[in-house]
């Protein structure tokens, strides 16, 4: 294995050298970096041209000029942006932070949702739900991202902000949303018509009811969850987690999950004052604290399957903290949306934050970046969701047809164990090998989405640099993304061998 990895690393360095060389030649030929000076009417024009030529070695042929860059790069100097004089390393670093925030969030969401839909779609193969999802994924797959992004920016933002200015949902819309929700849930549940109608009906009526309540009480203007709703949401999460992992027959699992719900609800009151002093790191620390507490509770309930219980406890604990955090975040919404800088239009379309609010603390800052991320993230999820759904569906279908699934059923395992432990885990292998590559590509940024929403990430850095023929910046970008892509490639191969014992390294 070690030999395999080191050999791959060695060839990767060769590939990187060839690719950077080719890229340098291309980038150097993408335009004229002296364009702005040639057109200028400054008296010292000729000196400026001479200075820039010397700085960028423009008098040297690009085929040789590469080695100037390479020499400096090997010493850790990636050069400067010739327009602003900023060092490339800091530019790339800043852009990378922005991109990870935006694209990372969207990718994780797309993977989770896509895997979920893919599994349900595969388990209900050839049902109305499956056909609906298949058609929807093909449609999403065929959407031009820039078109969706412009639409969201021009319509989504305006519509959303108008709604938030006067947040009342019309009765017709309420009924429609309820019907759609009911139909989707009914189709996803599957089984006999009676069962589908029952579950679909409950889901539809509940959705409409909750939305009506939210609309009637002006919840959207001053949202909050409160201990009661947190308890209900926690109970829901606990039930789902227990249902998917062990089933309700395992009493200790049920006790573990509900102990964590109880701890979360009790923690609501002290957390209200603690949250006021919370910053980003403290929030993360408390989250870890809740997960650890869940693991400990799981172990304390014990029994034969301590590990499963610990996992359930940690999961529910994490979610409980999430609800508490969300509740406090919501309590800040009123101040945020009524502040002068926002001016009653909370959903942002340009940039990653409101400059006037940069000094207003962790909570307002978090809301501010959420409101700016909503639209670009929606665009990104819409586009990347389709491939994960298709992939997961295909992989799950293949796995569920294998002989070992039949064996698992034949020996009398409950369907939950067959699907979750024998099917789902094996179906994840191809997805897991896909993810390192996607995550590596993620650092390249979402060129189009970032450009349209004015997000200063990697993609925008790249396009701007390309427009001004800023070779140093382009090379900095390409070096980082290229290295990450090659590493992602190697990790994907290694992961494949690690996860699937049938595959061996030559």
């Amino acid at each position, binding site marked *: 294995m070690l030999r395999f990895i080191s050999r791959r690393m060695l060839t990767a360095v060769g590939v990187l050298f060839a690719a950077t060389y080719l890229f340098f030649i291309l980038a150097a030929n993408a335009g004229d970096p002296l364009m702005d000076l040639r057109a200028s009417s400054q008296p010292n024009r000729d000196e400026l041209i001479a200075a820039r030529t010397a700085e960028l070695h423009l008098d040297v042929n690009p085929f040789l000029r590469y080695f100037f860059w390479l020499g400096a790069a090997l010493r850790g100097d990636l050069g400067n942006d010739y327009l602003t004089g900023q060092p490339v390393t800091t530019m790339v670093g800043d852009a990378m932070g922005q991109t990870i925030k935006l694209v990372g969030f969207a990718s994780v969401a797309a993977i989770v949702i896509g895997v979920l839909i893919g599994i349900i779609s595969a388990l209900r193969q050839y049902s109305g739900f499956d056909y609906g999802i298949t058609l929807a994924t093909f449609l999403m797959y065929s959407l031009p991202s820039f078109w969706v992004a412009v639409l969201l920016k*021009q319509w989504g933002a305006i519509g959303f902000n108008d709604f938030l200015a006067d947040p009342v949902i019309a009765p017709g819309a309420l009924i429609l949303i309820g019907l759609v929700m009911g139909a989707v849930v009914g189709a996803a549940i599957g089984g006999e018509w009676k069962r589908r109608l029952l579950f679909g009906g409950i889901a539809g009526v509940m959705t409409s009811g909750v939305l009506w309540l939210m609309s009637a009480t002006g919840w959207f203007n001053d949202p909050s969850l409160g201990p009661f709703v947190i308890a209900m949401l926690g109970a829901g999460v606990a039930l789902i987690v227990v249902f998917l992992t062990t089933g309700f027959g395992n009493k200790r699992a049920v006790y573990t999950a509900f102990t964590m719900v109880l701890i979360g609800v009790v923690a609501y009151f002290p957390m209200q004052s603690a949250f006021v002093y919370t910053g980003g790191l403290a929030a993360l620390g408390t989250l870890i604290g809740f997960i650890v507490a869940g693991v400990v509770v799981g172990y304390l309930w014990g029994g034969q399957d301590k590990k499963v219980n610990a996992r359930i406890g940690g999961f529910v604990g994490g979610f409980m903290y999430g609800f508490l955090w969300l509740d406090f975040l919501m309590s800040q919404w009123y101040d945020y949306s009524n502040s002068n800088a926002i001016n009653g239009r909370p959903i942002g379309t340009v940039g990653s934050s409101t400059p006037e609010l940069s000094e207003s603390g962790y909570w307002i800052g978090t809301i501010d970046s959420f409101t700016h991320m909503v639209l670009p993230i929606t665009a990104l999820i819409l586009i990347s969701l389709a491939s994960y759904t298709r992939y997961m569906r295909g992989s799950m279908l293949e796995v569920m047809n294998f002989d070992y699934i039949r064996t698992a059923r034949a020996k009398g395992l409950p369907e939950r164990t067959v699907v979750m432990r024998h099917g789902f885990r094996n179906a994840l292998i191809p997805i897991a090998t896909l993810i390192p590559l996607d995550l590596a590509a993620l650092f390249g940024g979402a060129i189009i989405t970032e450009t349209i929403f004015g997000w200063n990430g990697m993609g925008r850095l790249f396009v701007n640099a390309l427009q001004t023929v800023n070779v140093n910046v382009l090379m900095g970008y390409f070096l980082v993304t290229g290295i990450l892509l*090659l590493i992602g490639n190697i990790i994907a191969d290694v992961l494949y061998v690690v996860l699937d014992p049938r595959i061996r390294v030559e």
Partner: protein
Amino acid sequence: MSIESLAPVETEGLSLGKIVWGRFVRHKAAMISAVVLVITITVVLSSIGVGPIPGWWIWGPNDIDPTIVNNGHPTLAWEGWWFTLGEHPFGQDTIGRDAFARTMRGAQVSLMVMVLMGIIATIVGVVIGALSGFYRGRTDFALQRTTEVFIAIPTIVVTAVIGQKFGTSNPALFGVVLGLLLWPGLARLVRADYLGLREREFVDAARVAGASDRAIMFKHILPNAIGVVIVNATLLMAVATILEAALSFLGFGIQSPNVSLGQLINEYQTSFSTRPWLFWWPGFFIIVYALTINLIGDGLRDAFDPRQQRIPKTKELNKKAIAKAETEVAQ
């Protein structure tokens, strides 16, 4: 039971092409998509004509109608059971150009780019994949590393250079360049197929019979790998439609005065708040292209895959028809 029914029936053997075609025709989504695509292409090509051949539509893509009808709003409307085009079905832009003619020209250009790109990427991908998988060893190593370099280079840089050196005015050149860039995925799939197929007996048989390497690669092995090639070439064309539009949108593809669907969206996005229809229609045609081609590719994949059960067998269709007829008779 009569003697005749036990006698062996002469059945004609079906070629792979016939089997696949038969299965494809029964794939509903793919067939509907194929029909929609053919109709779309017919309208796109015939409306404003191709090159010297005139079309049935009165306006050309760059003609300016000095009278702006209905404030530039689309005149396409439903009247009872049928629709009427009116003077400017997709509306007019600020200087009076007909949006329908422009969209049609954009759709023609996008179609040409897509087809050119598809053909070139398929040829390059098949040749490189075949050489790599057939010869293995050093050839394979060298070609695989080349493929990796091509995957790493962002397409947008190459099109920027092309735009700089040759001007942005040539959609055909753009299609060729895209084709020369987008073959790596196909090459990898073809290589994987060839690695398995080269070990099969029919390759040995061909070699014993004295076939050259070239004949073995392209006459004997390629027909066995044709499924992978056709399916992925189709899906690649759907990707290329969107990619072409995206590059033109960013300003690194086809630029004004040339028209393409992405270029139109780029040109009209600033007038979104006043004339949103200018923005709707080019996007609609991109989606029609990409969606129908994707669904056709999916249908082809199912048709080529003998394990796929989504397509009903003729036997089952017959059975269903008989059952239906029987219930009708019973009533």
